[in-house]
């Protein structure tokens, strides 16, 4: 449970978790998480008051690993980003790049053998809250479903099959202490474009699109200001993906913050303001979504964009490295057309790109 998730400060110095490989931490924006000292739950603001800027989630130097017998999986290394109301950040990368682990870390949903370092500060009306290492009771009472609504992978299978959508939505509302759950459930359904009568169906009676809307209604039951959508489009066809993305955009435009995790560049393109491209557990490029997709600067991001069927449709050679065996140099080097001697030193994320030879605008 929550005791298994420990802030980085508890980790042995020099272990595999000290912000990645030697030398990696220095100039990166996240910095070395161990340098900031302990971050107890709900500490006094040290980085400026949250109230002035309103709500935000600030992730700094987030690092997650799993110890297996004989190996350590370095799933997320030194990831920093910020999400604010009214903006959608899409975290894109291929399966196994660490992006879903990152989402689970933020919600305290990692398995017991996970080790977590860095910070993830939720700044909102209740005061700041450090998510990493927060007790399970705090996450359950103040975070999941309340500050942060989760839109899960494959909504249809996320619902309990033996109870109607309404029973599950009303139960969620009751657990959140909302009055008049029945009327509130109808309201939530209507806002998602469902007829209230649709809520009386069992999950297997819902089409893919309806299940998606029910999942959105569930995520919104506690009126969260931050929505975390983890591969919400799995199994949906393109028109439904587009609809799901339009729904997310609507939530964003009404002032919620969205963190979208996806492998689908076209889905990200439809909704995201900002894009963060993840490779082998690290962010390799961040920036405005339109710019990153049109003129990527990191060779991996450029390769992904180039692989799209409406672009060159050419794969990146090779495969990502094993997260149990990350190299000390740039993890993309074996696949990178621009790799040279300089790439033996791991590139820090500077100015939105982690590369010693970022592509110029006219090359991308």
């Amino acid at each position, binding site marked *: 449970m929550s005791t298994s998730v420990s802030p980085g400060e508890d980790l042995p110095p020099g272990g595999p978790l000290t912000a990645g490989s030697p030398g990696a931490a220095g100039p990166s924006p996240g910095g070395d998480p161990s340098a900031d000292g302990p971050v107890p739950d709900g500490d006094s603001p040290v980085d400026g008051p949250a109230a002035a800027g309103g709500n935000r989630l600030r992730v700094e130097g987030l690092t997650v690993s799993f110890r297996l017998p004989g190996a350590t999986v370095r799933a997320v290394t030194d990831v920093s980003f910020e999400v604010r109301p009214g903006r959608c950040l899409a975290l894109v*990368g*291929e*399966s*196994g790049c660490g992006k879903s682990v990152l989402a689970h870390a933020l919600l305290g949903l990692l398995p017991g053998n996970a080790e977590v370092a860095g910070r993830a500060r939720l700044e909102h009306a209740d005061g700041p809250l450090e998510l990493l290492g927060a007790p399970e009771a705090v996450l359950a009472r103040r975070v999941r479903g309340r500050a942060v609504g989760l839109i899960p992978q494959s909504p249809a299978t996320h619902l309990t099959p033996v109870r109607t959508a309404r029973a599950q939505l009303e139960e969620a509302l009751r657990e959140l202490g909302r009055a008049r759950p029945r009327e509130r459930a109808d309201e939530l359904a209507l806002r998602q474009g469902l007829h209230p009568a649709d809520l009386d169906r069992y999950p297997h009676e819902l*089409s*893919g699109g309806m299940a998606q809307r029910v999942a959105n209604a569930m995520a919104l039951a506690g009126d969260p200001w931050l929505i975390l959508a983890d591969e919400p489009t*799995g*199994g*949906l*066809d*393109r*028109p*439904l993906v587009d609809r799901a993305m339009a729904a997310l955009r609507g939530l964003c435009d009404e002032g919620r913050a969205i963190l979208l995790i996806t*492998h689908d*560049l*076209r889905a990200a393109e439809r909704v995201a303001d900002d894009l963060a491209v993840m490779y082998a557990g690290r962010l390799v490029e961040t920036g405005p979504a339109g710019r990153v997709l049109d003129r990527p600067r990191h060779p991996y991001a450029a*390769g*992904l*964009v180039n*692989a*799209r*069927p*409406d672009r060159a*449709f*050419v*794969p*990146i050679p*090779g*495969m990502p490295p094993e997260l149990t065996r990350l190299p000390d140099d740039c993890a993309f080097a074996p696949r990178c057309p621009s790799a040279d001697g300089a790439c033996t030193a791991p590139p820090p994320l500077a100015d939105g790109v982690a590369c010693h030879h970022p592509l110029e605008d006219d090359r991308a």
Partner: protein
Amino acid sequence: MLEARDVTVRYGRQVVLDGVSLTVEPGRVTGLAGPSGCGKSTLARVLALMLRPAAGTVTVDGAAVRRWRQRAPRGLRTAVALLYQQPRLAVDPRLTLTEIIAEPLAAAGRADPGRVAALAAEAGLTGDLLGRRPHEVSDGQLQRACVARALSLEPRYLVCDEMTTMLDASTQAHLVAVVEAYRERSGAGVLAVSHDDALLARWAHHRVRLGGFEGLES
């Protein structure tokens, strides 16, 4: 030609396909598009001899299919290979990737480790990945193994049902390239089922939309 004629499929009282005909020509890629729930996957399974239609006929290079699934004659069954969207549902979780790829050759009494290694390499799988079991690899890596397995008996037709929908752009481009290389060297026919118009526009020679035919030559 791989051909479905006037095929009707019902699940209970629900009619999923109603007198549908489709032809997959050797050496060409036929794209099958259509919204979710239109019966694309059902038609794919009928053409892969995995589902017996309530009415209508399926022929493989002129040979009519009379028995389905495991009971179809070996020669017909291996003439058509099927790739699914979700590779985890298509493999035995106890086998290693090498064993998964080797399975059809071994079952046909033609075990051939050299060929298995070559197919794996073409699909981008090397080294100790091949000794892992499905739960130890990503969806993309597992789908690579499924593609290698599908090519192992040199099918005359490949039915790719949303084969790359769950995968990132680079893995998608790689797996489509592997299928294309096979098609070019073997002259096999490919049915590419996808809801992604951009993918079919790039990949298919012509596209058919289920529930309203559309003969787009590209």
